[in-house]
């Protein structure tokens, strides 16, 4: 249960409307540096980037650093253009990525 995401946004909007997208993430955002008990230190393991694309177009990017709290919450807006998927991708230290998709229906 190290990663989980809760994406909140309206599902049905009119074309041209401003859509608020809220993204709450469950992640410990371990900034590392603590002793591992064997003489070494625990490496940093945070989500270092969140990107969102809407119908293939990048609409949002958030570079995260060690100052970002655990379980980060971000909110941003975009303009509804056409029905399509909004794809969220998180990049974690170590190369792992997590993806979530939300459908935006534009009428």
């Amino acid at each position, binding site marked *: *249960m190290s990663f*989980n995401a809760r994406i909140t946004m309206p599902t049905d909007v009119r074309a041209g409307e401003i859509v608020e997208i809220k993204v*709450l993430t469950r992640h410990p955002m371990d900034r590392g540096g603590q002793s591992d008990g064997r003489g070494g230190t625990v490496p940093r393991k945070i989500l270092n980037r969140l990107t969102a694309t809407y119908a293939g177009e990048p609409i949002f990017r958030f570079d995260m650093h060690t100052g970002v709290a655990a379980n980060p919450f971000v909110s941003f807006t975009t303009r509804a253009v056409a029905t399509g998927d909004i794809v969220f991708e998180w990049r974690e230290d170590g190369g792992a990525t997590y993806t979530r998709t939300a459908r935006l229906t534009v009428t």
Partner: protein
Amino acid sequence: MTQGAVALALAAFAAVPALSEIKSGTEFLSPDMRRQQADETRNPAFFWVEQGRELFSRKPTPDGQACVSCHADPQQSLRGAATHYPQVDAATAKLLNLEGRIEQCRVERQGQPAFGYESPELLAMTAYLGSLSRGLPVEVKTDGAARPYYEAGKAFFERRQGQLNLSCQQCHDGLVGQKLRGDTVSHGAGTGYPAYRLEWNDVGSLHRRLRACSLGVRATQFDYGSPEYLALELYLAGRAKGLPVETPGMRR
């Protein structure tokens, strides 16, 4: 220093507030944090509630029984259950809080090893079961079999302890609303626990919070689930009678 000591000594004689005056910890939060607590889309503790809901319906072993096989339709059957804890277990005559009851069920009914106090699983289960009572008033029993535990908790609350020689009562009755280390002293109602504390970046149990308070007055920190903290938890719940359960809460 001397002035501070005098102020504390005076506070010790402050009148004990009537139970109706006890306010929830939420009342002492900033408006923004209150909104965040109420908003499922922004309160991170709901991840734990979600995990607890999954654990509740998952079989611990392929041929084992999930919690839902006994507690069908928990939204109905367990709504309000958390408002009665801590309570005295009829079979063992011991005081059990919600964590203790979950562990008892897991060990005796499910035949599984206990999750362990403060494990993510137990916190998730407690947060989930607590959330089923959201908005319902606390109604613990403080008489009958629970009386001695309640009295022990009250004595703990009123006893001066630690290097700073402070009792819980001096701050949580006498200095309520005043500032301490950048936070506001509250009545110490545990109605939001397990809660997401910004200081922890994590969900923690009431006993974790009590340990932090013990450390704050440089007193002995008792173990998670210790009889001392269980009795205190019952006393605090007794003080908070009638206040709505807010689990999962958010605290600074």
